[in-house]
């Protein structure tokens, strides 16, 4: 491992974070174990083709980016009364048993170098607990990052036959300058017949290196839907994934991105079909401009015992500039023949005929292009079931076109 954060990040730092949050021993142990494992863990996997690694996570200077003891944020986390929406320290006080049971049960704290770093150093987070049978529409988590680095952890537990819609936004405060590092891990545990809708809109400053890993475990008849919007950051490495472990479970993952300047988005979308009669639908659409680059990997993995699987994936990229680059690798891994699976990916530019049609109707070329870009997002926006997030995404696209 070339990166050596722990020159400054040592046991005492971890103990201090844990102590300030008044954490129980088991959590401190988990953090210390993750810290100790750092040396042996690889970076998150990225696509490699002969002679080329598609994203160079090794190149980052984590040591200078990471400053866990000076973490600062403005957080807003609200939800209806019948649901617990708690800060990390409140959650420890109110639901310790639940946390001990579920923390790290879906995303292994030592899955890779960056998850271990997150586990050792996180100091903020949100726990959403939805009791059995409760329907909660409106949970909002807004995080404004006001420090050099911020490590965030989110746990959603949806008990049997409950449902919840969660909207998460990440942004950067106005008065912070220089390069930053944001790291967030999200675990969703959906029990039998539960429905979780988790929408996220990342609009961090373009000097922020962003690492996120969001994964759900879907129980029998349950449904986990993700909406993943990526607008900001200098570099984003993100995975959004669902394990369809319960029979007849479902997942939809809708992604939208818009990269410009020298932004680099490395987006992983994954679904593991493990139970029988499971369904997945993965839809991602994005635009890149200037010298921005996107790397997309989508994996539909159908296990040996996943009978009667339906799995679909679509990815479309619109390139606005010759200097931009769009890389894609949509993968099918099929071990059960009782499967209907397909994927498709396209890359193209603004349609010349459509442009001509519009300019010939008196619309100037720039405006016509902008309209076509907005139109390009319509099919994914239609898939976004949360009105507020859809409007926000639309506004962000418009803003990006004005930039």
């Amino acid at each position, binding site marked *: 491992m070339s990166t050596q954060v722990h020159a400054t990040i040592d046991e005492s730092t971890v103990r201090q974070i844990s102590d300030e949050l008044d954490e129980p021993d088991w959590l401190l142990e988990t953090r210390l174990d993750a810290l100790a494992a750092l040396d042996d863990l690889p970076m998150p996997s990225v696509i490699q083709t*002969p002679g080329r690694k598609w994203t160079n996570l090794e190149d980052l200077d984590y040591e200078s980016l990471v400053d866990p003891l000076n973490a600062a944020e403005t957080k807003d986390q609200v939800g209806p009364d019948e649901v617990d929406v708690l800060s990390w320290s409140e959650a420890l006080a109110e639901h310790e048993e639940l946390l001990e049971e579920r923390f790290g049960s879906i995303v292994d704290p030592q899955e890779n170098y960056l998850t271990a770093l997150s586990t050792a150093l996180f100091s903020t987070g949100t726990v959403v607990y939805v009791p059995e049978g409760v329907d909660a529409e409106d949970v909002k988590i807004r995080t404004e990052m006001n420090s050099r680095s911020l490590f965030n952890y989110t746990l959603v537990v949806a008990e049997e036959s409950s449902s919840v819609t969660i909207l998460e936004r990440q942004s950067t405060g106005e008065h912070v300058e220089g390069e930053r590092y944001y790291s967030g891990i999200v675990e969703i545990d959906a029990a039998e017949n539960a429905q979780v809708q988790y929408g996220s809109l990342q609009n961090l400053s373009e000097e922020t290196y962003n690492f996120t890993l969001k994964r759900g475990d879907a129980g029998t008849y349950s449904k986990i839907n993700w909406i993943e919007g990526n607008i900001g950051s200098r570099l984003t490495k993100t995975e959004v994934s669902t394990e369809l472990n319960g029979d007849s479970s479902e997942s939809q993952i809708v992604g939208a991105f818009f990269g410009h300047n020298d932004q680099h988005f490395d987006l992983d979308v994954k679904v593991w079909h493990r139970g029988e009669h499971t369904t997945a639908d993965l839809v991602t659409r994005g635009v890149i401009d200037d010298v921005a680059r996107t790397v997309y990997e989508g994996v539909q993995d159908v296990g040996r015992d996943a009978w009667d699987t339906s799995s679909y994936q679509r990815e479309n990229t619109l*390139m606005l500039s*010759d200097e931009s680059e769009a890389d894609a*690798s949509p993968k099918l891994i099929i071990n059960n*023949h009782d499967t209907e699976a*397909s994927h498709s990916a396209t890359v*193209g530019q603004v349609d010349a005929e459509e442009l001509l049609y519009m300019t010939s109707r008196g619309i100037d070329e720039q405006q016509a292009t902008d309209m076509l870009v907005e139109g390009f997002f319509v099919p994914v926006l239609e898939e976004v079931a949360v009105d507020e997030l859809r409007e926000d995404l639309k506004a962000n696209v418009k803003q990006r076109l004005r930039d």
Partner: protein
Amino acid sequence: MSSDQDHLKETNTEDRFAFKNEHKAAVTAEKGLNEETIRLMSEDKDEPDWMLERRLRALEVFQEMPMPTDWPAMPDLSEVDINKIVPYIRPDVELREGTDDWENLPDEIKDTFDKLGIPEAEKEALSGVGAQYESEVVYQNMKEQWEEKGVIFMNMDRAVQEHPEIVKEYFMTSCVPPSDNKFAALHGAVWSGGSFVYVPEDVQVEMPVQAYFRMNSEGMGQFEHTLIVAEPGSEVHYIEGCSAPKYSHFNLHSGGVEVFVKEDAHVQYSTVQNWSRSTYNLNTKRAIVEKNGTMEWISGSMGSKATMLYPSSILKGRGATDNHITIAFAGEGQDIDTGAKVYHNAPNTKSTIESKSIAKDGGRTNYRGLVQIADGAENSSTAVECDALMFDNESTSDTMPYMEIEESKVNVAHEATVGKIGDEDIFYLQSRGLDDDDAKQMIVSGFIEPITEELPIEYAVELNRLIELEMEGSLG
């Protein structure tokens, strides 16, 4: 019906491929790979110094390069120990240069190819035929009408002697250099036999030329080299077939194919590969396509224990075109990891990739493909379509395409589907009186039809026969 079809009909396909002859050889190299073996080979072939130097340089590259290990879900190559391979066997044939008269061949070699139907195929519709047995080409014939026009079709060893100026220029220099991958380096060190095809400017060879490769000895490696140079405005269709009997010990096939498609030239390269289930097929095939040239790769991969093969085209000139049609069939114990690579390095280039695969009885197929569109390759387009058919729950079918797009004025589309054989289709056919096996066979034949219709009739028939054989009685 042509005599080929009669022949193929009469001969039991399994017998045609599974027989083996007693091992007879004039020169057999030591197992393993070292400088001494390379020098022995080169001396035995009476090669010029420059070729020996290229071999030794390739050996160095081979020794420096690691085995590929970090590919996602790559076939298991742990059994492939080069120290257990006999890299060179010269069959005990009087005629060192090979022969152009079929009757001159020793009986057991003649029998081998007779059973495979090679001369029959030649009689019909081919411009020329070559046949390689172990490491050397034993038979080669080119029809006069093409020779008169300056078309050269000869075995590669002879081409080194007779056309050194052309071979020196093209042989493992720009198209498949030894540094390309570990097995290309191995190939560069121990290559033997293969075909050399040269088509002069504006000559169109309307009938296909064909080469057949046969590995007979246990534990050997076959490393034939094929070099095709199609000068501007020329056209040629090259077909190769390969087979080897099954042994308990593994065989290694690591061929090298280099195709130069000059301006406005058109080359079609068809392969029906049916290596034995103990053969590792680790091949490197590549074409460089100049302005307005067209390269077509058509391949059927039926045999081998594991195949890793991704024929590639470098579209170097404006308006160059590439078409890939591939079919993979993996049965019990087989891992067929194959696909296509296309590099769009010039404007207005086009490529299409059509891939079909069938997995049954625990076999694995994988489409692994790379499409790269370089910055500046404007108005290029590519369409990739992969369809996989699965028969049972022991089998695996994966699709791993990679697309690197650095140019915005492009049209890139990739589509893949996986599905089981349709119950409804089978029901429909059964209700028309077909039994289950026949119904499935008919569906598979329909599934691969886009491939078979591109092949000359005798190959299409062979491919269908092979598939029938794969399907026979094995379905429940």
